[in-house]
């Protein structure tokens, strides 16, 4: 019996009958990934311009990136903003999701909708709104302003991820802990939090990436020495098309996939198996 006529699952459908499905899935995955991967060879080009495939290979654009104080400064800003956004958005989002889950008051559903509106409104509107608000508040082009705006975008993600983790969590456990002598905050810290820790790690990474990848809001409200990497990349693409962008993109892909791998490793609950 060859592979094609072997059953693919508990049903009697064979791998042969499933072949079209495998091809379809393969093509879809390729289309998803290829545009991202195409920048990698481009970044090792020796050419002055972005080109694919490159004719000569070199590391000059990496040298250019690491050697430029401007790019390094923007990178530092991006990391700083992303880390601070994670620190601000994760606890607030976790607490909000917990509150929504535990509360019995009416209209709690409306509160949830309110909390996730930043996800539904076009980001450009948030950017414009933030710009005018920040002018008034005099926090335009500051790290504080950037972190606040990015937290606004990240909190809904945290609320959704934690909220869905709490759905499968039995709140009676917390009541049990309380009846056994734990104050509520301690019951949360020792019983609830350890059981949603994977979701917390995942949501923290999402918060980080939300800020790190964000460009639209950053275009409006970051600038000067608080210019983010994405903002500078966007400007560089507009002004001079040079393969440094490809080098930076490659590094960003590495950072992002690295974090995703971390999320996969930590985010899989081995005790559940």
């Amino acid at each position, binding site marked *: 019996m060859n592979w094609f006529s072997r059953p693919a699952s508990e049903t009697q459908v064979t791998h042969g009958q499933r072949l079209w499905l495998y091809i379809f899935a393969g093509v879809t995955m390729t289309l998803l990934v290829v545009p991202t991967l195409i920048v990698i060879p481009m970044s090792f080009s020796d050419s002055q311009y972005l080109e694919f495939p490159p004719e000569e290979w070199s590391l000059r654009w990496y040298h250019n990136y690491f050697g430029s104080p401007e790019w390094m400064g923007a990178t530092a800003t991006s990391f700083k903003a992303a880390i601070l956004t994670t620190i601000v958005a994760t606890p607030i989002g976790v607490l909000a999701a917990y509150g929504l889950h535990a509360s019995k008051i009416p209209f709690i559903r409306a509160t949830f909708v309110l909390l996730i509106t930043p996800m539904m409104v076009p980001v450009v509107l948030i950017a414009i709104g933030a710009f005018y608000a920040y002018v008034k508040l005099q926090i335009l082009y500051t790290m504080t302003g950037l972190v606040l705006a990015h937290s606004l975008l990240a909190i809904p993600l945290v609320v959704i991820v934690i909220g869905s983790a709490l759905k499968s969590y*039995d709140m*009676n*456990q917390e*009541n*049990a*802990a*309380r*009846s*056994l*002598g*734990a*104050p*509520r905050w*301690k*019951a949360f810290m*020792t*019983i609830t939090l*350890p*059981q949603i820790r994977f979701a917390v790690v995942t949501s923290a990474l999402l918060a980080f990436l939300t800020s790190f990848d964000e460009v639209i809001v950053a275009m409006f409200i970051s600038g000067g020495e608080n210019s983010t990497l994405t903002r500078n990349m966007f400007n560089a693409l507009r002004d001079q098309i040079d393969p440094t962008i490809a080098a930076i993109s490659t590094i960003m892909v590495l950072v992002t996939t690295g974090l995703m791998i971390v999320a996969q490793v930590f985010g899989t609950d081995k*005790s*559940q198996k």
Partner: protein
Amino acid sequence: MSDTGQGALPIAVRNVTKTYGDVFALNDVSLDVKSGEFLTLLGPSGSGKTTLLMVLAGFTRPDSGSLKFGEDEMIRTAPHLRDVGMVFQNYALFPHMSVAANVGYPLKLRKTPKDEMDRRVEAALETVQLGGYGERGITQLSGGQKQRVALARSIVFAPRILLMDEPLSALDKKLRDRMQIELRHLHEKLGMTTVYVTHDQREALTMSDRIAVVNHGRIMQLATPQELYEQPANRFVADFIGDSTFLDVTRSGSALGAAGTNLKTTRHVPDGEGLSLMMRPERLHLITGKPAKDENVFEARVTELVYQGESYLLYAHLKDGTEVAVRGAMRAGTFDALPKQGDTVQLGLGVDDTVLLAGEEA
């Protein structure tokens, strides 16, 4: 467990009311649980029994009323300061901790020294017959074992009051029957004041010192299992405990009648109109031969006969059209000798079993 059982506390509930919107979950409930007593709150779902338990545990704050453990007013005390052991319906064990860590959790919160903690955890596990299970994970346990761990966790810190919210409802029938007896023994051994919530009347009858039947946020009757079964206070209790049929009773002077039979009874006859007669299947019997003097006799026509192994169940229509059930024990050959569908039979109800109830269904 040397350090449990001392100073079990009485519980005094006074005029506790809890409303959700217009609905009374608890309607002016007062209840005394004696020190060391096993008291069961029995009622259908939505009756308020769980709300009352949650008031005792501190998870529900009533609108008004008082709650005392011993001499201390508890109504405003947070759950973690009440020192009450509680077993939850689905155990509520902590799956991210080992069995020993689960059981040791309340001791750890009380900053118990490590050696003493280990000793008491093991002692508690032995009490529930899980000695040596400390290192296991929660997910590796069967339902019955989880139940025991939950119990060990709730008694390990020697609380003076133990609350249980339908703790056996997730177990299969055989295990449930065994755990009922075990819990009863454990209670005798530890002597904590225990409040147990269930909707299962047999469970309540098996385990309790006293039972409070709860409905519509009120206590309908508080009595020992035997009193409750033999002399229910009203139609609701009679209906909820056991499979009863009720006949309207007519009264003229001191003469009582139901379904065309003049009733004799040795039991209390309540005053007022609207009396009904409670008929329980196992108290009715088929008369073969001459009726005895001390029984009420009803004519009936058999509508159905059911074979149930250890007993038979015979359904019959009385003269007034009411369907009653008769349950009888069986031995080899009994079933074949029973009357068949359509036969006319005489049903006997002993005068001591002739219980009359006042009032409408509550």
